């Protein structure tokens, strides 16, 4: 079995994701495994910074496939997401045809042939000429507007795109599709119905420690334990925006850059901007509250055993 085959079981999925420095929950690994097996798109929702985009990158690396990323934004349309005609070349072709005296009929068919097609992310992903089916990441779908979702339906269920002037392009082998949403609005049921759904939650303490060990290998274990315990405690507070795993990693790197060996209230106050992005939240945690939380956290860390 080569190293880029589809995983054989759920355990295999977990092992290979961990091998690529992604520590999944068992539930996520199950959903990923099924999505690969059933050739269904994977729809991931969850708080920002919980590793939704990262799973697509990891899958591409794990299966040895190219990653094609489509970042969604409001007003994203066909010409931005799927294909566009190369107007400059078409104009040139018209001029040449005028000079050469080609027939009208020939020109009309020729103008909209494959030569003049500019392929964007979606069309690239289902291009039958691709040597291997890529991983298609449709990132932050909630940022696109509703009309765009309707267009995705054909791509997601049949892995094909119909171009009116040209015909239907269908993938030879379905690409691996990962859709993510931060849930700033609800995605239409018709899109979700075609996918396998998973809500990516914040990791528990042990898993977050494992993630940190993989992502920031240089961090001393004692510091990692304090950091993770502190962030887990923060997530129990009534904050407007809870820190995600991405923030945990960033904060650890920031603390390493400051040569901090242990957490203390002063260091926390100075670096809080890495963790919390709303002034109200920062005000709530700053100062004596940070010291109080830290004391609670020390008890938790002691429970974790010797560093």
């Amino acid at each position: 079995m080569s190293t880029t085959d589809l995983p054989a079981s759920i355990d295999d999925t977990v092992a290979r994701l961990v091998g690529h420095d992604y520590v999944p929950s068992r539930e996520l690994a199950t959903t990923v495994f099924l999505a690969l097996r059933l050739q269904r798109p994977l729809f991931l929702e969850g708080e920002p910074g919980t590793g939704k985009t990262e799973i697509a990158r990891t899958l591409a690396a794990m299966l040895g496939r190219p990653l094609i990323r489509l970042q969604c934004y409001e007003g994203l349309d066909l010409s931005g997401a799927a294909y566009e005609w190369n107007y400059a070349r078409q104009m040139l072709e018209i001029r040449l045809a005028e000079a050469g005296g080609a027939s009208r009929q020939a020109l009309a068919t020729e103008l909209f042939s494959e030569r003049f097609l500019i392929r964007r992310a979606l069309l690239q992903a289902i291009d039958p000429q691709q040597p291997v089916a890529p991983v298609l990441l449709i990132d932050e779908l909630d940022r696109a507007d509703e009309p765009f979702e309707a267009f995705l339906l054909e791509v997601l269920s049949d892995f094909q795109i119909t171009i009116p002037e040209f015909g239907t392009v269908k993938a030879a082998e379905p690409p691996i599709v990962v859709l993510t949403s931060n849930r700033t609005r609800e995605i239409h049921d018709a899109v979700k119905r075609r996918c396998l759904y998973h809500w990516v939650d914040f990791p528990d303490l042990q898993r977050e420690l494992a993630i940190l060990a993989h992502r920031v290998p240089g961090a001393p274990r004692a510091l990692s334990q304090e950091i993770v315990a502190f962030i887990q405690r923060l997530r129990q507070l009534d904050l407007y925006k809870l820190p995600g795993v991405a923030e945990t990693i960033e904060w650890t790197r920031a603390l390493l850059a400051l040569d901090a060996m242990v957490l203390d209230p002063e260091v926390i106050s100075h670096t809080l901007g890495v963790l919390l992005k709303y002034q109200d939240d920062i005000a709530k945690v700053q100062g004596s509250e940070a010291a109080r939380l830290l004391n609670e956290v020390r008890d938790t860390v002691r429970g974790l055993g010797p560093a």
Partner: protein
Amino acid sequence: MLRAPEVDSLPGRLADNVLHFARVLRHAGLPVGTDRVQLALAALHHGGLESRRDFRATLAACFVDRGEHRELFDQAFYIFWKDPDLEGRMRALLLPQVKTHEKAANAPPENRRLAGALFPHMPPHAAPEPPREQVEVQAAFTFSDREILRQKDFETLSSEEWREAKAMLLRLRPFFEPLATRRTEPAPHGRPDWRASLAAMGRHGGELWEMRRRRPRARPAPLVVLADISGSMSSYSRMLLHFVHALSHADLRVHSFVFGTRLTPISRALRQRDPDIAVASVARAVQDWSGGTRLAQSLHLFNRHWARRVLGGRATVLLITDGLEHGDTTQLAFEAERLAKSCRQLVWLNPLLRFDGFEPRAAGVRALLPHVHRFLPAHNIASLEQLARVLAGAGERGSPPFH
């Protein structure tokens, strides 16, 4: 594309049980279609039978498709696939007066909707009796933050009111000011549309030079309605619901919530085309009709859980409340400010205050007032007609209603 799974190849009666489980979820309100059942059966051929946790994850991936359904799914899974004492539980449901407290410590709380789905023929739990002293007909100008759970039964809509609702929407047009979107439409002036131009040229053999153009398409701003249904507002509740229902079916993006002592999203329930069925399903979903008000807390919940999902920076928020708030109003001011900052326009419609001689005396009103972009005091709106007139008038920025 999916192969029909061979039912026999799954062990025992597993396929049948998955089917039954899907039916239970469907009755409990999860949108589980037959395609999802097929998907689940196909998925179980590939894995998920090794451990209970994998099995649950497999079914969850196939049956759940939104975050808020996870808890319901977990409870249903717990009861359906594990509970060895199913019979005992059924007996407990048959005899609601016998309360058993020795529940397993890790048992998730049972959902009443779920109980109804699992045991559809059992008598419902006796509804808590509403406290007697709270039964008052007209509660305007009184308020409290006590939580009183009450169900409500509305009269159905008369045909005259139905016509009125339709007419109202036409009059409301100016209230929804159109915003330019990033999508475009063909137009005589604007940015060049190369695709259409070249298609036209190609059709004419390259001879005709006629530039096609497009311009940004305009769409009415999305609207979020936050309606107070507490005791002091009870005489308006029915009218407000019909108003929101009419709005939801007028090619507008409308999200609606009602609040008394808790915040209930009602957009899904109002998606029903028939106004009476829609309003009845809202009436069933809402637990706190005509109870107390917790304005600050409701706004807090909205800001925390919904604002990021439904506002998106461009929405108009229509806050319908009398603004009577108990106790400390600093939190109310804080939440109102946050709400105002995260939407494009915050419009406060107060049906209980008359414009002439209005003085912001109540503390809650004083806390809200500095943060709203527009304040519409509308005394005694009893019909959709009057409400439309007030709103449409506001759309014309202060000019008298055109009627």
